[in-house]
């Protein structure tokens, strides 16, 4: 026998490679899974690939990131300027984005194909934990940027946690590592981001994958074929009897998707680059406008939306409730129809979730309720307003902060209504009253001198009359 062959045999015998290969790569999967429908089943592995990218890039970044409050921001700037540093930071961000996106898509697919049903309830539940951990990684990751947004997100989180009844204060103190943002704050988020959460994820991914192997990958559903505890396992075993090996029939798609994913991540990192770090952090800088990364923009909007009496409900119990509900889905409906064609409510639920998420995120992007602090004063001459009370009104409109929330002729904030034609909608009396008494989301300018109110009115009149 030739030498390479003998070495190969020895290694295989002592390491048991082919045994492992047998169980991981060559185990049979149902024939329909390698058909065109196989493309539905690549999302989980794609999520895993994104996680692998996170681990590799994250470990690389950890060699040069300083998790100390006085140096973290600087160390990121150094990484950005270093060889490959910007690329790795970019990959870490874009792959994180991909991972969040993919895990949700994977969940939607699992839900729509009814793959969470008997006997795979625990696949879904471990996946739920992984979803939570992925979001925790996304949130702590944004914070490690330790720029103005990062520092203020700690404050915001602590304030959020503080609202939880009974244990809130403890959670808030836990986030901060004490009373305020200070020396112990960043290191704990770093430790959780790089040790605790990933360790939990490794364990859960192990269990999740083991369960996929143990129960076998769920086969594409066909309408009318109901899941029943008594018959499902036998039917599935029969499918495997006529099955095909996972490699290469099922795996090639996942490999192609993995290559495309990593290529896309590298491309985005090269073309768009890394995110931040933003301006240097300063807990005393009140000019900060903290905004979460896109993953949590929907929540940012939700918090704005809520009617005041429902505050704690929306901020605390709503996310908690959604989480618990997600976990319980397979326990509510473990049997029955799997095909989405026979489960209109499942499609409706996914569609509604997508719609709500899209709308909330869209509003979060525009966030029109944020006062436009930087809006420059309106030049009366540009609107054809001669010097006089109306021109004074334009100045007062800016000075008194009306312009933070209101626009005239397209200049100013978008929170309140555009006031260009306000005098056509409301009588002068109504306008005066509205300025002095306020309404819902508008402060009452009780101390505004009568002259100023009249000047504003003159300005509104002038703005309404003149066409640009």
């Amino acid at each position: 026998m030739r030498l390479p062959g003998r070495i190969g045999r020895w290694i295989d015998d002592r390491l048991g490679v082919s045994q492992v290969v047998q169980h991981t790569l060559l185990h049979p999967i149902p024939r329909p899974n390698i058909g065109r429908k196989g493309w539905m089943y690549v999302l989980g592995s794609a999520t895993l690939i994104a996680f692998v990218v996170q681990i590799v890039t994250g470990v690389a970044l950890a060699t040069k990131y300083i998790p100390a409050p006085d140096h973290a921001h600087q160390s990121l700037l150094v990484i950005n300027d270093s060889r490959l540093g910007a690329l790795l930071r970019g990959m870490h961000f874009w792959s994180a984005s991909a991972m969040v996106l993919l895990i949700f898509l994977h969940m939607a697919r699992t839900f729509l194909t009814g793959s969470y049903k008997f006997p795979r309830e625990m696949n879904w539940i471990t996946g739920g934990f992984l979803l939570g951990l992925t979001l925790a990684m996304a949130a702590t990751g944004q914070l490690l940027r330790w720029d103005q947004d990062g520092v203020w997100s700690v404050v915001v989180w602590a304030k959020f946690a503080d609202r939880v009844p009974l244990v809130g204060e403890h959670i808030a103190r836990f986030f901060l590592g004490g009373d305020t943002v200070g020396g112990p704050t960043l290191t704990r988020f770093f430790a959780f981001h790089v040790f605790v959460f990933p360790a939990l994820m490794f364990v859960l991914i192990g269990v999740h994958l083991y369960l996929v192997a143990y129960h076998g990958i769920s086969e594409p559903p066909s309408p009318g074929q109901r899941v029943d505890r008594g018959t499902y396992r036998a039917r599935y075993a029969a499918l495997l009897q006529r099955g095909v090996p996972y490699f290469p029939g099922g795996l090639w798609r996942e490999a192609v998707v993995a290559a495309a994913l990593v290529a896309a991540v590298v491309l985005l990192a090269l073309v768009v680059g890394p995110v931040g770090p933003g301006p240097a952090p300063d807990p005393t800088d009140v000019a900060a406008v903290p905004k979460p990364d896109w993953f949590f923009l929907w929540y940012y909007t939700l918090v704005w939306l809520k009617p005041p009496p429902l505050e704690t409900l929306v901020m605390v119990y709503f996310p908690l409730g959604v989480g618990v509900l997600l976990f319980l889905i397979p326990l509510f409906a473990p049997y029955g129809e799997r095909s989405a064609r026979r489960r209109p409510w499942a499609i409706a639920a996914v569609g509604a979730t997508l719609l709500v998420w899209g709308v909330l995120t869209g509003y979060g992007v525009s966030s029109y309720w944020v006062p436009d602090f930087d809006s420059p004063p309106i030049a009366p001459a540009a609107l054809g307003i001669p010097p006089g009370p109306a021109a004074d009104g334009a100045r007062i409109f800016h000075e008194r902060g009306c312009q933070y929330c209101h626009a005239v002729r397209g200049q100013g904030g978008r929170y309140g209504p555009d006031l260009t034609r306000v005098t056509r909608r409301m009588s002068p009396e109504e306008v005066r009253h509205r300025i002095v008494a306020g309404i819902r989301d508008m402060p009452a300018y009780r101390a505004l001198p009568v002259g100023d109110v009249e000047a504003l009115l003159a300005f509104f009149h002038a703005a309404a009359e003149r066409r640009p």
Partner: protein
Amino acid sequence: MPTRRAVRLIERLQGFLVAILLVPVGRRLVSTVRQRRLARITGDRPAAAPGAAGAGDGEAAEVPRRRFLAQLTMGAAAVVAGLLGVPFAGFVFAPGRRLGRQWRPVGDVAAFAVGRTVKVNYLDPAPLPWAGFAAETAAWLRREGDSQFVAFTIYCTHTGCPVRWEDGADLFMCPCHGGAFYRDGTVAAGPPPIPLTRYPVRVRDGVVEIETAPIPGQSPS
């Protein structure tokens, strides 16, 4: 561009690694596939656990001993878990440093004009050496009269974003969700549920002092 060159380098390295790793793995796989027929693969399910049958006379006597050893194993595992877990959880989930409250000077009385609201910065109690800028906190200070001062938190009572004082508008305004507060801290508009938290202020020997306050415990619940 250095990054492009780096990417080319990575690509070359990747190709090299793929060649080193994948070729033998691929060979191994192909031969394994050849060796084992599909039928055998699909039929290859783990057999039922052996050992259930054939319990002899001696085995009966073994049962209490086995039970004891099983309990011993679990007890030992619990000891390991406890000895590791208690210090871990106790350290990591400790409530953090409680620093109490301290009076911090923020400036001479004369430095503040009556009727004006200004931001003052001061140090947290007992900051750690590496805290850097994070050791500092700010508050809004308003001089109401000769020796009357009011201090407000900079944290919006809605979600904790920084409120800024806008002199012209005579309002505290929050950039996150458009909350606004009057100069006395009461809610003027937007989502904040309660007035801005006030901090204790005093004047000592012509110096204005603010009492530090922890961030948790100020929010409505």
